[in-house]
């Protein structure tokens, strides 16, 4: 089959311990995992405080990377997060079990597309928003959605990945710990990269940090999923 192709116009990323582009370049070059100290969150200085107050840390990280580009109503947003506002959702479930009265504000912001919606309201951008979660294949699903939108005629697609460590409650379902991060890749029509399938299994599914490291380094190819989807560098 033909591969899905796209160009990459720009990238942005934020984590509690990696707050500049240079820090991310160094991180990618070292091939070392980013370790995220708890608690730190970005300022999101561009957003009006009355709207910013709604967002918790995960949302603020996503907003921080979105605000690193100019407002652009023609640029669709694909919001891809495996767990979304999991800290918030867990706290809501605990409160529901305890008191049967949950915070309407926290509930409204725990919906998966809420942060992207908050962003479009704050910047008055009538942009198309797609929010998705696809387990360990969230990075692959986000890339495919964004690449298909570009192929379908979108002039620019902002692909936002974000996640943070799971609350301790989920430790019985132990997964490799994911440090907190938000990443934005701005896809445009072009042929810098291709997504395709090959008859070769990989050891694990790639997460969004693996994708960013691939983008920032020189490797020719990244295995996106165990089942054979790959991302190839062409330019």
């Amino acid at each position, binding site marked *: 089959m033909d591969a899905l192709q796209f160009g990459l116009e720009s990238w942005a990323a934020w984590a509690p311990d990696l707050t500049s582009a240079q820090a991310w370049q160094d991180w990618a070059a070292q091939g070392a995992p980013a370790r995220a100290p708890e608690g730190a969150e970005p300022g999101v200085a561009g957003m009006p405080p009355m709207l910013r107050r709604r967002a918790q840390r995960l949302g603020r990280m996503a907003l921080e990377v979105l605000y690193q580009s100019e407002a652009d109503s023609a640029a669709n947003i694909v919001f891809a997060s495996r767990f979304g506002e999991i800290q918030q959702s867990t706290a809501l479930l605990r409160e529901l079990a305890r*008191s049967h009265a949950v*915070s309407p504000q926290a509930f409204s912001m725990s919906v998966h597309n809420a942060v992207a919606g908050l962003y479009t309201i704050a910047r008055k951008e009538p942009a198309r928003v797609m929010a998705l979660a696809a387990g360990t294949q969230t990075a692959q699903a986000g890339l495919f959605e964004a690449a298909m939108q570009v192929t379908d005629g979108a002039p620019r697609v902002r692909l936002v990945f974000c996640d943070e460590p799971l609350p301790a409650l989920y430790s019985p379902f132990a997964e490799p710990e994911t440090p907190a991060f938000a990443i934005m890749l701005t896809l445009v029509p072009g042929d810098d990269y291709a997504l395709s399938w090959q008859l070769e299994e990989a050891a694990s599914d790639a997460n969004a940090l693996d994708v960013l490291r691939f983008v920032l380094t020189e490797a020719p190819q990244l295995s996106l999923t165990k089942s054979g989807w790959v991302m190839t560098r062409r330019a």
Partner: protein
Amino acid sequence: MDPLIAEIKTLIIESLNLEEITPDDIDADAPLFVDGLGLDSIDALELGVALQKKYGLSFAADSEETRRHFASVSALAAFVGSHRTK
């Protein structure tokens, strides 16, 4: 200042994450919603839950009377003062 008014201002700031506002910034007689403080419908629900928990109040979801009680901090303080159960 009436201690109940000060208490309600603090409750509003804390429950609605008004991170850059102090109790002195809130005019007790100014409208809370749209104009004045600029709160919205989600804030109204949030504040309703907070008042319910702290003072044991109950509200009719969307009555004219409830709107009057939520008009300003002063109006809320008068309502809390006369209807609180804790």
